[in-house]
Protein backbone atom coordinates (compact mmCIF):
# COMPACT_ATOMS: atom_id res chain seq x y z
CA UNK A 1 0.00 0.00 0.00
CA UNK A 2 1.23 3.48 -0.70
CA UNK A 3 1.35 5.70 2.32
CA UNK A 4 -2.08 7.04 3.01
CA UNK A 5 -1.60 9.38 5.93
CA UNK A 6 -4.58 9.60 8.24
CA UNK A 7 -6.65 12.56 7.19
CA UNK A 8 -7.64 13.53 10.68
CA UNK A 9 -4.38 14.85 12.14
CA UNK A 10 -2.70 17.72 10.32
CA UNK A 11 0.82 17.12 11.59
CA UNK A 12 1.50 13.43 11.34
CA UNK A 13 5.01 12.10 11.69
CA UNK A 14 5.48 11.51 7.95
CA UNK A 15 4.33 15.05 7.21
CA UNK A 16 6.68 16.56 9.77
CA UNK A 17 9.51 14.50 8.29
CA UNK A 18 8.60 15.74 4.81
CA UNK A 19 8.59 19.36 5.95
CA UNK A 20 11.98 18.98 7.60
CA UNK A 21 13.39 17.36 4.46
CA UNK A 22 12.05 20.16 2.30
CA UNK A 23 13.43 22.81 4.69
CA UNK A 24 16.86 21.17 4.64
CA UNK A 25 16.80 20.98 0.85
CA UNK A 26 15.80 24.65 0.52
CA UNK A 27 18.38 25.88 3.02
CA UNK A 28 21.24 23.74 1.75
CA UNK A 29 22.91 26.21 -0.69
CA UNK A 30 22.81 28.99 1.92
CA UNK A 31 24.32 26.74 4.56
CA UNK A 32 26.98 25.48 2.16
CA UNK A 33 27.95 29.04 1.25
CA UNK A 34 28.09 29.99 4.92
CA UNK A 35 30.32 26.99 5.60
CA UNK A 36 32.51 27.97 2.68
CA UNK A 37 31.91 24.59 1.00
CA UNK A 38 30.24 25.38 -2.36
CA UNK A 39 31.14 21.86 -3.47
CA UNK A 40 28.27 20.58 -1.33
CA UNK A 41 25.77 22.27 -3.65
CA UNK A 42 27.06 20.24 -6.56
CA UNK A 43 27.03 17.03 -4.53
CA UNK A 44 23.48 17.79 -3.41
CA UNK A 45 22.46 18.44 -7.02
CA UNK A 46 23.80 15.06 -8.03
CA UNK A 47 21.86 13.49 -5.15
CA UNK A 48 18.62 15.12 -6.34
CA UNK A 49 19.21 13.94 -9.90
CA UNK A 50 19.73 10.35 -8.81
CA UNK A 51 16.76 10.74 -6.48
CA UNK A 52 14.62 11.58 -9.50
CA UNK A 53 15.87 8.49 -11.32
CA UNK A 54 15.26 6.34 -8.23
CA UNK A 55 11.74 7.74 -7.74
CA UNK A 56 10.93 6.87 -11.35
CA UNK A 57 12.17 3.34 -10.72
CA UNK A 58 10.10 3.09 -7.54
CA UNK A 59 6.96 3.80 -9.57
CA UNK A 60 7.35 0.53 -11.43
CA UNK A 61 9.42 -1.46 -8.93
CA UNK A 62 7.73 -0.47 -5.69
CA UNK A 63 4.17 0.00 -6.88
CA UNK A 64 4.00 -2.19 -9.96
CA UNK A 65 6.26 -5.02 -8.80
CA UNK A 66 8.30 -4.74 -12.00
CA UNK A 67 11.92 -5.35 -11.07
CA UNK A 68 13.60 -3.55 -13.93
CA UNK A 69 17.34 -4.17 -13.89
CA UNK A 70 17.92 -1.89 -16.83
CA UNK A 71 16.58 1.41 -15.63
CA UNK A 72 19.93 3.18 -16.04
CA UNK A 73 19.52 2.71 -19.81
CA UNK A 74 16.70 5.26 -19.86
CA UNK A 75 18.75 7.62 -17.71
CA UNK A 76 21.64 7.19 -20.12
CA UNK A 77 19.44 7.80 -23.15
CA UNK A 78 18.22 11.07 -21.63
CA UNK A 79 21.82 12.05 -21.01
CA UNK A 80 22.83 11.23 -24.56
CA UNK A 81 20.02 13.37 -25.97
CA UNK A 82 21.61 16.33 -24.18
CA UNK A 83 25.12 15.28 -25.18
CA UNK A 84 24.40 14.54 -28.83
CA UNK A 85 22.44 17.74 -29.42
CA UNK A 86 25.19 19.64 -27.64
CA UNK A 87 27.84 18.07 -29.90
CA UNK A 88 25.92 19.05 -33.05
CA UNK A 89 25.41 22.52 -31.75
CA UNK A 90 29.05 23.02 -30.95
CA UNK A 91 30.40 21.91 -34.34
CA UNK A 92 27.49 23.33 -36.32
CA UNK A 93 26.57 20.00 -37.91
CA UNK A 94 23.04 18.69 -38.33
CA UNK A 95 21.22 15.58 -37.17
CA UNK A 96 18.48 14.30 -39.52
CA UNK A 97 18.70 17.71 -41.14
CA UNK A 98 18.12 19.55 -37.89
CA UNK A 99 20.69 21.64 -36.04
CA UNK A 100 21.86 20.78 -32.53
CA UNK A 101 20.67 22.84 -29.58
CA UNK A 102 21.36 23.49 -25.93
CA UNK A 103 17.96 25.01 -25.24
CA UNK A 104 16.72 23.18 -22.13
CA UNK A 105 13.09 23.73 -23.05
CA UNK A 106 13.73 21.70 -26.20
CA UNK A 107 16.37 19.26 -25.03
CA UNK A 108 14.86 18.19 -21.71
CA UNK A 109 11.42 17.31 -23.11
CA UNK A 110 13.20 15.49 -25.93
CA UNK A 111 15.16 13.52 -23.35
CA UNK A 112 11.88 12.53 -21.71
CA UNK A 113 10.43 11.59 -25.07
CA UNK A 114 13.49 9.51 -25.89
CA UNK A 115 13.28 7.75 -22.52
CA UNK A 116 9.61 7.00 -23.12
CA UNK A 117 10.14 5.83 -26.70
CA UNK A 118 12.93 3.50 -25.61
CA UNK A 119 10.84 2.17 -22.73
CA UNK A 120 7.96 1.35 -25.05
CA UNK A 121 9.51 -1.57 -26.98
CA UNK A 122 11.64 -2.71 -24.03
CA UNK A 123 8.53 -2.81 -21.85
CA UNK A 124 6.36 -4.37 -24.54
CA UNK A 125 8.78 -7.25 -24.89
CA UNK A 126 9.90 -7.75 -21.30
CA UNK A 127 6.36 -7.49 -19.89
CA UNK A 128 5.51 -10.70 -21.71
CA UNK A 129 7.41 -12.28 -18.85
CA UNK A 130 7.62 -11.66 -15.13
CA UNK A 131 9.86 -12.55 -12.23
CA UNK A 132 13.45 -13.48 -13.01
CA UNK A 133 13.00 -13.53 -16.83
CA UNK A 134 11.73 -9.95 -16.61
CA UNK A 135 14.82 -8.93 -14.66
CA UNK A 136 17.10 -10.63 -17.17
CA UNK A 137 15.43 -9.17 -20.27
CA UNK A 138 15.50 -5.61 -18.96
CA UNK A 139 19.14 -6.16 -18.05
CA UNK A 140 19.88 -7.53 -21.51
CA UNK A 141 18.32 -4.53 -23.24
CA UNK A 142 20.28 -2.12 -21.09
CA UNK A 143 23.55 -3.93 -21.79
CA UNK A 144 22.77 -3.91 -25.50
CA UNK A 145 22.43 -0.14 -25.38
CA UNK A 146 25.57 0.11 -23.29
CA UNK A 147 27.60 -1.69 -25.96
CA UNK A 148 25.87 0.28 -28.69
CA UNK A 149 26.98 3.56 -27.12
CA UNK A 150 30.44 2.19 -26.45
CA UNK A 151 30.79 1.46 -30.15
CA UNK A 152 29.28 4.71 -31.32
CA UNK A 153 32.52 6.48 -32.25
CA UNK A 154 30.69 9.48 -33.72
CA UNK A 155 29.63 10.39 -30.19
CA UNK A 156 32.82 9.61 -28.35
CA UNK A 157 32.44 5.84 -28.04
CA UNK A 158 34.07 4.74 -24.83
CA UNK A 159 35.12 8.28 -23.96
CA UNK A 160 31.64 9.75 -24.10
CA UNK A 161 30.94 13.41 -24.69
CA UNK A 162 32.31 16.20 -22.51
CA UNK A 163 30.01 19.21 -22.28
CA UNK A 164 31.45 22.63 -21.74
CA UNK A 165 28.21 24.38 -21.07
CA UNK A 166 24.91 23.52 -19.48
CA UNK A 167 21.54 23.69 -21.17
CA UNK A 168 20.01 27.15 -21.31
CA UNK A 169 16.69 28.06 -19.74
CA UNK A 170 14.71 31.28 -20.19
CA UNK A 171 15.83 34.22 -18.02
CA UNK A 172 16.09 34.63 -15.12
CA UNK A 173 17.04 30.97 -14.80
CA UNK A 174 20.77 30.88 -15.44
CA UNK A 175 21.66 27.29 -14.59
CA UNK A 176 25.32 27.82 -15.36
CA UNK A 177 25.13 29.04 -11.78
CA UNK A 178 25.37 25.96 -9.54
CA UNK A 179 22.87 27.24 -6.98
CA UNK A 180 20.25 28.13 -9.59
CA UNK A 181 20.70 24.73 -11.21
CA UNK A 182 20.30 23.11 -7.79
CA UNK A 183 16.95 24.82 -7.25
CA UNK A 184 15.75 23.93 -10.75
CA UNK A 185 16.55 20.27 -10.12
CA UNK A 186 14.89 20.44 -6.71
CA UNK A 187 11.79 21.94 -8.30
CA UNK A 188 11.65 19.19 -10.91
CA UNK A 189 12.11 16.50 -8.26
CA UNK A 190 9.30 17.93 -6.14
CA UNK A 191 7.10 18.10 -9.23
CA UNK A 192 7.91 14.47 -10.03
CA UNK A 193 7.09 13.44 -6.47
CA UNK A 194 3.73 15.25 -6.57
CA UNK A 195 2.99 13.67 -9.93
CA UNK A 196 4.02 10.25 -8.66
CA UNK A 197 1.91 10.68 -5.55
CA UNK A 198 -1.19 11.55 -7.57
CA UNK A 199 -0.41 8.71 -9.93
CA UNK A 200 -0.18 5.91 -7.38
CA UNK A 201 -3.39 7.03 -5.70
CA UNK A 202 -5.33 7.49 -8.94
CA UNK A 203 -7.40 4.84 -10.67
CA UNK A 204 -4.38 4.09 -12.82
CA UNK A 205 -2.22 3.65 -9.73
CA UNK A 206 -4.73 1.26 -8.22
CA UNK A 207 -4.58 -0.91 -11.30
CA UNK A 208 -0.78 -0.99 -11.14
CA UNK A 209 -0.78 -1.84 -7.43
CA UNK A 210 -3.53 -4.39 -7.91
CA UNK A 211 -1.46 -6.09 -10.60
CA UNK A 212 1.46 -6.26 -8.18
CA UNK A 213 -0.76 -7.87 -5.53
CA UNK A 214 -2.58 -10.32 -7.78
CA UNK A 215 -2.26 -10.10 -11.55
CA UNK A 216 -4.40 -13.14 -12.28
CA UNK A 217 -7.31 -11.67 -10.39
CA UNK A 218 -6.93 -8.37 -12.19
CA UNK A 219 -7.41 -10.14 -15.51
CA UNK A 220 -10.43 -12.00 -14.16
CA UNK A 221 -11.94 -8.67 -13.12
CA UNK A 222 -11.58 -7.46 -16.70
CA UNK A 223 -8.37 -5.44 -16.71
CA UNK A 224 -6.01 -5.67 -19.69
CA UNK A 225 -3.19 -5.67 -17.16
CA UNK A 226 -0.21 -5.58 -19.51
CA UNK A 227 -1.42 -2.38 -21.14
CA UNK A 228 -1.45 -0.58 -17.79
CA UNK A 229 1.90 -1.95 -16.72
CA UNK A 230 3.39 -0.88 -20.03
CA UNK A 231 2.01 2.63 -19.56
CA UNK A 232 3.65 2.77 -16.12
CA UNK A 233 6.90 1.49 -17.59
CA UNK A 234 6.85 4.22 -20.24
CA UNK A 235 6.08 6.95 -17.69
CA UNK A 236 9.00 5.74 -15.58
CA UNK A 237 11.18 5.74 -18.71
CA UNK A 238 10.26 9.36 -19.42
CA UNK A 239 11.11 10.46 -15.88
CA UNK A 240 14.38 8.54 -16.05
CA UNK A 241 15.13 10.30 -19.33
CA UNK A 242 14.65 13.65 -17.60
CA UNK A 243 16.95 12.52 -14.80
CA UNK A 244 19.51 11.64 -17.47
CA UNK A 245 19.28 15.09 -19.05
CA UNK A 246 19.84 16.64 -15.63
CA UNK A 247 22.68 14.24 -14.88
CA UNK A 248 24.48 15.28 -18.06
CA UNK A 249 24.10 18.88 -16.94
CA UNK A 250 25.22 18.14 -13.41
CA UNK A 251 28.39 16.27 -14.39
CA UNK A 252 28.97 18.10 -17.70
CA UNK A 253 29.57 14.72 -19.25
CA UNK A 254 27.77 11.79 -20.89
CA UNK A 255 29.30 8.38 -21.37
CA UNK A 256 28.32 4.74 -21.82
CA UNK A 257 29.02 4.08 -18.15
CA UNK A 258 25.75 5.86 -17.38
CA UNK A 259 23.94 2.93 -18.97
CA UNK A 260 26.02 0.23 -17.33
CA UNK A 261 24.18 -2.49 -15.43
CA UNK A 262 25.93 -1.52 -12.21
CA UNK A 263 24.20 1.89 -12.46
CA UNK A 264 20.87 0.10 -12.72
CA UNK A 265 21.93 -1.86 -9.65
CA UNK A 266 22.72 1.39 -7.83
CA UNK A 267 19.21 2.65 -8.59
CA UNK A 268 17.68 -0.51 -7.16
CA UNK A 269 19.87 -0.15 -4.07
CA UNK A 270 18.64 3.43 -3.65
CA UNK A 271 15.02 2.32 -3.84
CA UNK A 272 15.48 -0.55 -1.41
CA UNK A 273 17.69 1.44 0.95
CA UNK A 274 15.26 4.35 1.06
CA UNK A 275 12.05 2.36 1.21
CA UNK A 276 10.44 0.48 -1.62
CA UNK A 277 6.99 1.65 -2.64
CA UNK A 278 7.18 4.89 -0.67
CA UNK A 279 8.17 7.36 -3.43
CA UNK A 280 9.93 9.70 -1.00
CA UNK A 281 12.10 6.88 0.35
CA UNK A 282 14.23 6.58 -2.79
CA UNK A 283 15.19 10.26 -2.32
CA UNK A 284 16.65 9.30 1.06
CA UNK A 285 18.18 6.22 -0.53
CA UNK A 286 19.90 8.28 -3.20
CA UNK A 287 21.22 10.67 -0.55
CA UNK A 288 22.43 7.84 1.65
CA UNK A 289 24.19 5.97 -1.14
CA UNK A 290 25.91 9.02 -2.64
CA UNK A 291 26.93 10.36 0.78
CA UNK A 292 28.35 7.00 1.78
CA UNK A 293 30.16 6.83 -1.53
CA UNK A 294 31.52 10.34 -0.99
CA UNK A 295 32.67 10.18 2.61
CA UNK A 296 33.20 6.58 3.66
CA UNK A 297 36.18 5.95 1.34
CA UNK A 298 37.82 9.13 2.65
CA UNK A 299 37.35 8.03 6.24
CA UNK A 300 38.62 4.54 5.46
CA UNK A 301 41.66 5.97 3.73
CA UNK A 302 42.37 7.95 6.87
CA UNK A 303 42.37 4.71 8.85
CA UNK A 304 44.55 2.92 6.35
CA UNK A 305 45.74 4.25 3.01
CA UNK A 306 44.15 2.40 0.10
CA UNK A 307 41.34 0.94 2.20
CA UNK A 308 38.90 3.46 0.71
CA UNK A 309 38.42 1.62 -2.53
CA UNK A 310 36.81 -1.21 -0.61
CA UNK A 311 34.14 1.09 0.81
CA UNK A 312 31.31 -1.19 -0.29
CA UNK A 313 32.31 -3.43 2.63
CA UNK A 314 30.49 -0.82 4.67
CA UNK A 315 27.54 -0.49 2.28
CA UNK A 316 26.80 -4.23 2.30
CA UNK A 317 26.10 -4.61 6.02
CA UNK A 318 24.11 -1.35 6.08
CA UNK A 319 21.86 -2.70 3.32
CA UNK A 320 21.43 -6.06 5.01
CA UNK A 321 20.53 -4.46 8.33
CA UNK A 322 17.99 -2.16 6.71
CA UNK A 323 16.37 -4.94 4.74
CA UNK A 324 16.20 -7.13 7.85
CA UNK A 325 15.02 -4.56 10.36
CA UNK A 326 13.32 -1.80 8.39
CA UNK A 327 11.03 -3.18 5.75
CA UNK A 328 10.25 0.28 4.45
CA UNK A 329 13.91 1.32 4.48
CA UNK A 330 15.15 4.67 5.70
CA UNK A 331 11.79 6.31 5.13
CA UNK A 332 10.21 3.66 7.35
CA UNK A 333 12.69 4.57 10.08
CA UNK A 334 12.08 8.29 9.68
CA UNK A 335 8.31 8.24 9.27
CA UNK A 336 7.62 5.40 11.67
CA UNK A 337 5.14 2.58 11.28
CA UNK A 338 1.90 3.58 9.71
CA UNK A 339 -1.19 2.84 11.76
Amino acid sequence: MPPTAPRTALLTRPRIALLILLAVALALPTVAAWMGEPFYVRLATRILVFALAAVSLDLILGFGGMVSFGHAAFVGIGGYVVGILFAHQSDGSTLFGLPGTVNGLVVWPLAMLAGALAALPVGAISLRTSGVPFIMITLAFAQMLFYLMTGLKAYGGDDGIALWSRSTLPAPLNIADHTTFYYVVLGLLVAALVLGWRLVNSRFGRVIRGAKDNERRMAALGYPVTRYKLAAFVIAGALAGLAGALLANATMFVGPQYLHWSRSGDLIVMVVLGGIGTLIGPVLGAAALLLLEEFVPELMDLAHAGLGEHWKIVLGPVLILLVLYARKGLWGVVAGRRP
Partner: protein
Amino acid sequence: MSRPLLSRPLLSTDSLVKRFGGLAATDGLSLSVAEGELHALIGPNGAGKTTLIGQLSGELTPDSGTILFDGRDVTRLPVHKRARRGLARSFQITSIFPSFTALDNVALAVQAHAGHSFRFWRDAGRDRRLADPARAVLERVGLGARADTRADALAHGEKRQLELAMALATGPRLLLLDEPMAGMGPEDSARMVELLQELKGGVTILLVEHDMDAVFALADRITVLVRGKDLASGTPAQIRNDPAVREAYLGDEMEVA
Protein backbone atom coordinates in the same frame (compact mmCIF):
# COMPACT_ATOMS: atom_id res chain seq x y z
CA MET B 1 -31.16 -36.40 -21.09
CA SER B 2 -31.95 -33.54 -23.44
CA ARG B 3 -34.81 -31.30 -22.60
CA PRO B 4 -36.09 -28.05 -24.03
CA LEU B 5 -34.45 -25.08 -22.37
CA LEU B 6 -36.64 -22.65 -20.48
CA SER B 7 -34.89 -19.82 -22.25
CA ARG B 8 -31.97 -19.47 -24.60
CA PRO B 9 -28.59 -20.50 -23.20
CA LEU B 10 -26.39 -17.71 -21.90
CA LEU B 11 -23.37 -19.96 -21.93
CA SER B 12 -22.86 -23.12 -23.90
CA THR B 13 -20.03 -25.35 -24.96
CA ASP B 14 -20.01 -27.58 -27.99
CA SER B 15 -17.85 -30.74 -28.14
CA LEU B 16 -15.19 -29.15 -25.95
CA VAL B 17 -11.93 -31.11 -25.70
CA LYS B 18 -8.89 -30.38 -23.57
CA ARG B 19 -6.10 -32.91 -23.25
CA PHE B 20 -3.10 -32.97 -20.98
CA GLY B 21 -0.74 -35.48 -22.52
CA GLY B 22 -2.81 -38.61 -23.08
CA LEU B 23 -5.47 -37.63 -20.59
CA ALA B 24 -8.64 -35.94 -21.81
CA ALA B 25 -9.61 -33.66 -18.93
CA THR B 26 -12.52 -32.37 -20.99
CA ASP B 27 -13.78 -35.00 -23.39
CA GLY B 28 -16.23 -33.71 -25.97
CA LEU B 29 -18.33 -31.84 -23.48
CA SER B 30 -21.47 -30.03 -24.56
CA LEU B 31 -22.97 -28.03 -21.75
CA SER B 32 -25.58 -25.36 -21.69
CA VAL B 33 -26.45 -22.88 -18.99
CA ALA B 34 -29.77 -21.10 -19.45
CA GLU B 35 -30.23 -17.43 -18.73
CA GLY B 36 -31.33 -16.92 -15.14
CA GLU B 37 -30.75 -20.44 -13.85
CA LEU B 38 -28.43 -21.69 -11.17
CA HIS B 39 -26.65 -24.55 -12.78
CA ALA B 40 -24.51 -26.75 -10.58
CA LEU B 41 -21.56 -28.76 -11.82
CA ILE B 42 -20.64 -31.73 -9.70
CA GLY B 43 -18.36 -34.68 -10.10
CA PRO B 44 -15.69 -36.64 -8.28
CA ASN B 45 -12.17 -35.31 -7.90
CA GLY B 46 -10.39 -35.42 -11.23
CA ALA B 47 -13.63 -35.19 -13.20
CA GLY B 48 -12.32 -32.10 -14.98
CA LYS B 49 -14.30 -29.39 -13.21
CA THR B 50 -11.36 -27.07 -12.66
CA THR B 51 -10.14 -27.58 -16.22
CA LEU B 52 -13.59 -26.68 -17.50
CA ILE B 53 -13.73 -23.53 -15.38
CA GLY B 54 -10.29 -22.63 -16.74
CA GLN B 55 -11.55 -22.90 -20.30
CA LEU B 56 -14.79 -21.04 -19.61
CA SER B 57 -12.95 -18.16 -17.94
CA GLY B 58 -10.26 -18.06 -20.63
CA GLU B 59 -7.19 -19.10 -18.68
CA LEU B 60 -7.00 -22.34 -20.68
CA THR B 61 -7.54 -22.71 -24.42
CA PRO B 62 -9.45 -25.82 -25.48
CA ASP B 63 -7.86 -28.15 -28.04
CA SER B 64 -11.11 -28.25 -29.98
CA GLY B 65 -14.76 -27.32 -29.64
CA THR B 66 -16.36 -23.96 -29.06
CA ILE B 67 -17.61 -21.85 -26.20
CA LEU B 68 -20.50 -19.48 -26.80
CA PHE B 69 -21.32 -16.72 -24.37
CA ASP B 70 -24.40 -14.63 -25.01
CA GLY B 71 -24.60 -16.04 -28.51
CA ARG B 72 -21.05 -15.12 -29.45
CA ASP B 73 -18.00 -17.30 -29.87
CA VAL B 74 -15.56 -16.56 -27.04
CA THR B 75 -13.43 -19.68 -27.40
CA ARG B 76 -10.23 -17.76 -28.02
CA LEU B 77 -11.06 -14.53 -26.24
CA PRO B 78 -8.57 -13.56 -23.50
CA VAL B 79 -9.62 -13.57 -19.85
CA HIS B 80 -10.10 -9.83 -19.43
CA LYS B 81 -12.27 -9.51 -22.53
CA ARG B 82 -14.62 -12.25 -21.34
CA ALA B 83 -14.81 -10.49 -17.99
CA ARG B 84 -15.73 -7.27 -19.77
CA ARG B 85 -18.60 -9.04 -21.49
CA GLY B 86 -20.01 -9.98 -18.10
CA LEU B 87 -18.44 -13.31 -17.28
CA ALA B 88 -17.24 -13.03 -13.69
CA ARG B 89 -15.62 -15.72 -11.64
CA SER B 90 -14.59 -16.51 -8.13
CA PHE B 91 -11.60 -18.69 -7.37
CA GLN B 92 -11.42 -21.98 -5.54
CA ILE B 93 -8.30 -20.78 -3.75
CA THR B 94 -9.08 -17.34 -2.40
CA SER B 95 -7.76 -14.75 -4.82
CA ILE B 96 -7.94 -11.26 -3.40
CA PHE B 97 -5.70 -8.21 -3.07
CA PRO B 98 -4.09 -8.77 0.33
CA SER B 99 -2.63 -5.29 0.80
CA PHE B 100 -5.87 -3.50 -0.06
CA THR B 101 -8.75 -2.99 2.39
CA ALA B 102 -11.89 -5.03 1.85
CA LEU B 103 -13.58 -1.93 0.47
CA ASP B 104 -10.73 -1.21 -1.94
CA ASN B 105 -10.78 -4.81 -3.14
CA VAL B 106 -14.38 -4.39 -4.19
CA ALA B 107 -13.79 -0.85 -5.45
CA LEU B 108 -11.15 -2.27 -7.77
CA ALA B 109 -13.78 -4.65 -9.14
CA VAL B 110 -16.22 -1.75 -9.62
CA GLN B 111 -13.50 0.26 -11.33
CA ALA B 112 -12.84 -2.56 -13.79
CA HIS B 113 -16.27 -1.94 -15.30
CA ALA B 114 -16.38 1.84 -14.99
CA GLY B 115 -14.62 2.72 -18.24
CA HIS B 116 -10.88 2.72 -18.77
CA SER B 117 -8.46 3.36 -15.93
CA PHE B 118 -6.04 5.67 -17.71
CA ARG B 119 -6.95 8.30 -15.14
CA PHE B 120 -3.83 9.58 -13.51
CA TRP B 121 -4.74 12.48 -11.28
CA ARG B 122 -7.89 12.13 -9.15
CA ASP B 123 -7.57 10.29 -5.86
CA ALA B 124 -9.46 7.05 -6.44
CA GLY B 125 -9.78 6.60 -2.68
CA ARG B 126 -12.07 9.62 -2.49
CA ASP B 127 -14.05 8.73 -5.57
CA ARG B 128 -17.58 7.97 -4.43
CA ARG B 129 -18.46 6.52 -7.80
CA LEU B 130 -16.21 3.63 -6.79
CA ALA B 131 -16.66 3.56 -3.04
CA ASP B 132 -20.48 3.77 -2.89
CA PRO B 133 -21.26 0.79 -5.09
CA ALA B 134 -18.41 -1.13 -3.45
CA ARG B 135 -19.84 -0.49 -0.01
CA ALA B 136 -23.27 -1.59 -1.18
CA VAL B 137 -21.90 -4.92 -2.41
CA LEU B 138 -19.97 -5.44 0.82
CA GLU B 139 -23.19 -4.88 2.77
CA ARG B 140 -24.96 -7.34 0.52
CA VAL B 141 -22.51 -10.15 1.27
CA GLY B 142 -22.46 -9.25 4.97
CA LEU B 143 -19.02 -7.66 5.13
CA GLY B 144 -20.13 -4.08 5.66
CA ALA B 145 -18.56 -3.84 9.09
CA ARG B 146 -15.20 -5.03 7.77
CA ALA B 147 -14.89 -2.48 4.95
CA ASP B 148 -11.75 -0.82 6.28
CA THR B 149 -9.93 -3.98 7.30
CA ARG B 150 -6.98 -5.07 5.21
CA ALA B 151 -7.99 -8.11 3.20
CA ASP B 152 -5.13 -10.24 4.51
CA ALA B 153 -6.43 -9.67 8.06
CA LEU B 154 -9.89 -11.11 7.32
CA ALA B 155 -10.95 -14.53 8.59
CA HIS B 156 -11.13 -17.35 6.05
CA GLY B 157 -14.92 -17.23 5.74
CA GLU B 158 -14.79 -13.48 5.29
CA LYS B 159 -12.22 -13.81 2.53
CA ARG B 160 -14.58 -16.19 0.74
CA GLN B 161 -17.35 -13.60 1.08
CA LEU B 162 -15.01 -10.94 -0.25
CA GLU B 163 -14.12 -13.21 -3.14
CA LEU B 164 -17.81 -13.38 -4.05
CA ALA B 165 -18.31 -9.66 -3.47
CA MET B 166 -15.61 -8.86 -6.02
CA ALA B 167 -17.22 -11.06 -8.65
CA LEU B 168 -20.61 -9.49 -7.91
CA ALA B 169 -19.29 -5.94 -8.04
CA THR B 170 -18.43 -6.27 -11.71
CA GLY B 171 -22.17 -6.46 -12.38
CA PRO B 172 -21.85 -9.79 -14.18
CA ARG B 173 -24.32 -11.59 -16.40
CA LEU B 174 -22.83 -14.92 -15.45
CA LEU B 175 -21.12 -15.91 -12.23
CA LEU B 176 -18.66 -18.80 -12.39
CA LEU B 177 -18.32 -19.86 -8.78
CA ASP B 178 -15.52 -22.32 -8.18
CA GLU B 179 -16.24 -24.01 -4.86
CA PRO B 180 -17.33 -20.88 -2.98
CA MET B 181 -17.69 -22.89 0.22
CA ALA B 182 -14.26 -24.48 0.09
CA GLY B 183 -12.79 -24.71 3.56
CA MET B 184 -15.78 -23.11 5.23
CA GLY B 185 -17.28 -24.18 8.53
CA PRO B 186 -20.98 -25.12 8.66
CA GLU B 187 -22.03 -21.70 9.88
CA ASP B 188 -20.25 -19.82 7.11
CA SER B 189 -21.49 -22.35 4.57
CA ALA B 190 -25.08 -21.81 5.67
CA ARG B 191 -24.66 -18.07 5.27
CA MET B 192 -23.18 -18.56 1.80
CA VAL B 193 -26.10 -20.78 0.76
CA GLU B 194 -28.48 -18.11 1.99
CA LEU B 195 -26.58 -15.49 0.01
CA LEU B 196 -26.60 -17.55 -3.18
CA GLN B 197 -30.31 -18.16 -2.65
CA GLU B 198 -30.80 -14.39 -2.71
CA LEU B 199 -28.67 -13.94 -5.82
CA LYS B 200 -30.44 -16.72 -7.65
CA GLY B 201 -32.69 -15.53 -10.44
CA GLY B 202 -31.06 -12.13 -10.56
CA VAL B 203 -27.90 -13.43 -12.12
CA THR B 204 -27.10 -16.63 -13.98
CA ILE B 205 -24.79 -18.84 -11.93
CA LEU B 206 -22.62 -21.81 -12.79
CA LEU B 207 -21.70 -23.33 -9.46
CA VAL B 208 -18.96 -25.89 -8.91
CA GLU B 209 -19.33 -27.26 -5.41
CA HIS B 210 -18.53 -30.34 -3.37
CA ASP B 211 -21.09 -29.62 -0.67
CA MET B 212 -24.01 -31.78 -1.88
CA ASP B 213 -26.47 -30.32 0.61
CA ALA B 214 -25.78 -26.90 -0.82
CA VAL B 215 -25.94 -28.08 -4.42
CA PHE B 216 -29.28 -29.86 -4.05
CA ALA B 217 -30.72 -26.95 -2.09
CA LEU B 218 -29.71 -24.34 -4.64
CA ALA B 219 -29.55 -25.78 -8.13
CA ASP B 220 -32.20 -25.46 -10.81
CA ARG B 221 -30.26 -27.94 -12.88
CA ILE B 222 -27.27 -30.14 -12.23
CA THR B 223 -24.68 -31.55 -14.59
CA VAL B 224 -22.66 -34.51 -13.40
CA LEU B 225 -19.19 -34.55 -14.84
CA VAL B 226 -17.20 -37.79 -14.88
CA ARG B 227 -13.86 -38.11 -16.65
CA GLY B 228 -14.47 -34.97 -18.65
CA LYS B 229 -17.86 -36.14 -19.92
CA ASP B 230 -21.42 -35.14 -19.17
CA LEU B 231 -22.72 -38.26 -17.38
CA ALA B 232 -26.11 -36.74 -16.70
CA SER B 233 -27.89 -33.41 -16.68
CA GLY B 234 -31.22 -32.59 -15.15
CA THR B 235 -33.17 -31.26 -12.22
CA PRO B 236 -31.97 -32.17 -8.74
CA ALA B 237 -34.76 -34.77 -8.49
CA GLN B 238 -33.77 -36.37 -11.80
CA ILE B 239 -30.12 -36.47 -10.81
CA ARG B 240 -30.94 -37.89 -7.42
CA ASN B 241 -32.82 -40.76 -9.05
CA ASP B 242 -30.53 -41.38 -11.98
CA PRO B 243 -29.14 -44.91 -11.66
CA ALA B 244 -25.99 -44.12 -13.62
CA VAL B 245 -25.24 -41.20 -11.36
CA ARG B 246 -25.87 -43.28 -8.28
CA GLU B 247 -23.53 -45.91 -9.51
CA ALA B 248 -20.78 -43.65 -10.76
CA TYR B 249 -20.65 -41.05 -8.17
CA LEU B 250 -23.40 -40.19 -5.77
CA GLY B 251 -23.80 -43.56 -4.05
CA ASP B 252 -22.56 -42.64 -0.63
CA GLU B 253 -23.49 -39.00 -0.64
CA MET B 254 -27.06 -39.81 -1.69
CA GLU B 255 -27.73 -41.30 1.70
CA VAL B 256 -26.70 -38.04 3.24
CA ALA B 257 -28.46 -35.83 0.71
